[in-house]
């Protein structure tokens, strides 16, 4: 069990790293796109444009939120001494 946990931790660190939101964004965007494809309401080009625009905008939003929250944290507590 201990080794399984360590392996899981390793996989998480290796793959997800220090920003789980990126992974969540990709999975959510592709999940929504999968539903759109299954309904057959959109053509291939529309799906391609929706997915690529959605992922890139969500990626940018994540970064902006991260940088702003880091700033707010620093403004309140001062720079950390890591």
């Amino acid at each position: 069990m201990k080794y399984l946990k360590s392996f899981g931790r390793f996989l998480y660190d290796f793959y997800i790293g220090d920003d789980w939101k990126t992974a969540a964004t990709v999975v959510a965007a592709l999940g929504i796109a999968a539903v759109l494809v299954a309904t057959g309401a959109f053509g291939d080009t529309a799906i391609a444009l929706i997915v690529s625009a959605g992922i890139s905008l969500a990626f940018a939003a994540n970064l902006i939120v991260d940088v702003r929250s880091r700033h707010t944290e620093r403004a309140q507590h001062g720079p950390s001494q890591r």
Partner: protein
Amino acid sequence: MGSTATWGLVTAVFAASLVEFVEAFTIVLAIGTLRGWKSALAGAALAIVALAGFTVAVGYALVTWLPESALQLLIGTLLLIFGLQWLRKAILRSAGLEALRDEDEAFREQSEAARRSSGETRFGFDWYAFVISFRGVFLEGLEVVFIVITFGLNADNVPLAAAGAVAAGVIVLIAGLVAREPLARVPENTLKYSVGLLLSTFATFWAVEGLGIFREGGESLAWPGEDLALLALLAGWFLLSRLLIRLLPRLARRGPGGSVPSIVGEETS
């Protein structure tokens, strides 16, 4: 696969491998210099054998068990998460919001840790040197293997992807043997930024194609302009990243505190 995709494949794998091999080289160099080359090289050699076995096993399993569109979706998703992490880190570093990796500093830290550790011997090897060398090469190499497998399988050209990685490894090895010091002048962030852009581009392309598995018949989705869409995607990711590199430092400085130090993260690999 068209020539655009082929060049993208080789460039991405080569650049990614160069970055990872430089980092692995720093570890082996520090350990070998301080603790002896026999154990350091044995650890590195075992890691390379383990990585080769891992590549063959995972590559075979994926090709054998998954239909084409499922493979595109799975690999596209995995590669997209991986590529966006690289791109995110490179953007933060380029914007001055995260410290750049310094191979000289990494070498000093590794050397200091090697000096302080015990000299336990197992199977005729300096165990610390063997394990640290193995772990360093295996972990850095795992990222290379991941990119070789995902790119190679989706582009249907694993040998070309592997050749790109091997070429990078040989170049780092020769440069390292000549320099006999950490390869600090390799522009790691620029390489990482380029790889992040390429991985995100190809991964977006493949993930969208793979979504076809959810429609009747399971046939891959088609991009307008086919392979040429890769160039449009690359341009899109590039423009977005440049915009973020300009915008993020301003956002970090604005707000109740008035100003913040330029570096808000700690150095990461």
